């Protein structure tokens, strides 16, 4: 190649094709996709909790995209029906995730609807799931000698509770749990667009 202008033009053309196919076309196709019937916008508390989920990097171990039964038995694990594009209508940024070091959380609110369980599990995952490798989040909690009025005390199995004190959830922990409990897409998805459904048939 003798001409660097031609070289760069060619290189940019190929990138333009790639951008068109992986960014622009999906944008045009999905832009008018309505939210799935039954999907509610997040409340302010849930949005704060969603921000906490991002702050702690939960997305690196938990996906939020159950797969089609023909591809993986995600539904048999209780993770829910395959997700569709409309389920993510209110999600910015998206939190689809690419890892399942821990289980998929798309419907964790339906699976574990107890706020006490969620709080205790965040404080010490191994108190509820023996063998879990999820990190403990003690910095989302305070250990006090006794609870003040209005404090959210975390109920823990006795052997995991600190001696001579109570564990109190910070606002951040409560927000995070509010978000987790909002993750419930057990309502049916309307028949998706013919070409916008789960990839595996």
């Amino acid at each position, binding site marked *: 190649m003798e001409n660097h202008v031609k070289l*760069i033009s060619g290189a940019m053309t190929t990138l333009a094709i790639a951008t068109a196919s*992986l960014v622009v076309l999906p944008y045009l196709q*999905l832009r008018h996709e309505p939210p799935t019937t039954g999907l509610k916008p997040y409340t302010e508390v849930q949005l704060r909790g969603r921000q906490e989920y991002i702050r702690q*990097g939960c997305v*690196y171990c938990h*996906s939020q995209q159950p797969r089609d039964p023909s591809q993986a038995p995600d539904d048999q694990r209780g993770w829910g029906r395959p997700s569709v594009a409309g389920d993510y209508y209110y999600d910015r940024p*998206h939190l689809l995730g690419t890892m*399942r*070091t821990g289980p998929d959380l798309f419907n964790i609110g339906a699976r574990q609807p107890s706020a006490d369980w969620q709080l205790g599990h965040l404080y010490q995952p191994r108190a509820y799931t023996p063998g879990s490798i999820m990190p403990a989040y003690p910095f989302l909690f305070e250990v006090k000698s006794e609870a003040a009025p209005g404090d959210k005390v975390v109920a823990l199995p006795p052997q995991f509770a600190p001696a001579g004190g109570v564990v109190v959830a910070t606002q951040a922990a409560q927000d995070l749990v509010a978000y987790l409990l909002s993750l419930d897409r057990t309502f049916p998805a309307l028949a998706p667009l013919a070409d916008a459904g789960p*990839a595996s048939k």
Partner: protein
Amino acid sequence: MDIPLLLLSSFIIAVTGLFFFIWSLRKGLLDPDAAGAKVIFSPGEIGRVEEPAARAATQRELQRAMVFSPGEPDAGELQARLAADASSARPAFVLLGFAVFWLLVASLAGLTSSIKLHEPDWLTQYAWLSFGRIRTIHLNAVAYGWAPMAALGVALWMLPRLLKTTLEGARFAVWGAILWNIGLAIGIGCIAMGINDGMEWLEIPGQVGVLFAVGGAMIGLPLVFTLRRRKVEHLYVSVWYMGAALFWFPVLYIVAKLPNLHFGVEQATMNWWFGHNVLGLFYTPLSLAAVYYFLPKVIGRPIQSYNLSLIGFWCLAFFYGQVGGHHLVGGPVPEWMVTLSIVQSMMMIVPVVAFSLNQHLTMRGHFAALRHSPTLRFIVLGGMMYTLSSIQGSFEALRSVNTITHFTHFTVAHAHLGLYGFVTLVMFGAIYFAMPRILSREWPYPTLIAVHFWLVAIGFAIYFVSLTTAGVLQGFAMLDASKPFMESVRVTLPWLEGRSIGGALMTLGHLAFAAHFLLMALARGPKRSGAAILRPLARTA
């Protein structure tokens, strides 16, 4: 877009490709011994080895290991090369220095997060050390610290040599690098505090990203200026890769960071268009550029088939940009997009085979040179890892394979095969070659280079095998609905520990490398032949 249309278009593309192939055969583009491959040598230089990282005695052995006898290079051209090296020395050194610093940060963060996966109650009191953050610090220190700083430093150093001119506007690069690294330090600080944009590979807040944009542009400027004052007629293939990468990356980053545009599932497709293309259209071409320069340079022999390398370039440009969608196989995204990405992932076999065939044919009969050249060991092993990781990636994109490997540690192992096995090893080799020229000084302790090589080679082998095994076991356990989810965690544990052992060896290797780099920069250690390294002819003649 429907399936018949997709099949039809891929058929048309294939037929067009076939015609192009026949045409290129007719034009003699596939003949070996193209003149372009010899551009990196001065007249008479072919046959003479060049290995600044080795001891003088080792260099003589290397020359003996190559069968042909060297000619007498053109003194004027060698003088011009010295001038080229002098013009790029300062910016290249600044960038490589930053790169080594971030390599250390990234290694420690990576090792910490690896240990945390099997010791979940270790260091849990500090939010910034929790897995979700320290892992992200690791990724960003590699993705925006080590890899681009090393690759751009090597590119800045290679370009004046390749264009037989001096680097124009070196000061821009130095200031650009400083801005970039301030941005990165702030970005990593933000992640540690939990402030981030929430997408993999794009965590650093957009507001900080402005520093990257300005800094990156300033690093790129001298490369553009230098390209315009080149003194060579032909642009060597390394220049293609570097030139394209420098224009590709800013577009990727700007499109990805456009505020208030991306949403929901569309954002996920954009996320993986970006995440994959950073690897394929930035680190990969810059590393391939290094291989295509250093490999022939060390053994004093042009690459076997120059035109094959050009085919490799255009195939990479055409196919790689569209493979990102395979990260969403089975996800709630348009099916045509995933199919397109799978097809293009398989097509990537073409440029990869073009490259590996070329590397093998160039090295054939000369593998003994590996014994004598530290640069070559890193570069050739890195090149092999490129082949492995790309072929693995192509098959990983297939739905049948992806069903098992998706969402598992297998993907992490694969990413490390590309970014560590390939990019990082090639960069080590390139740095070993370039630094003696940049500082006009030899590496003080060549033994440390061997220590570095074996620590990272063995460490990475353990790392990769462990994590791949963990991923496959995890994938199969998760596909078996009769097993509880915890089974997929349990089976990975011994292998995650293995990963930490491998990672610890790699980190040790990096410590040896960084210490050596520092000693060299501070001019410590024995000086065997001083700046004699700048006159390699006197000793080999």
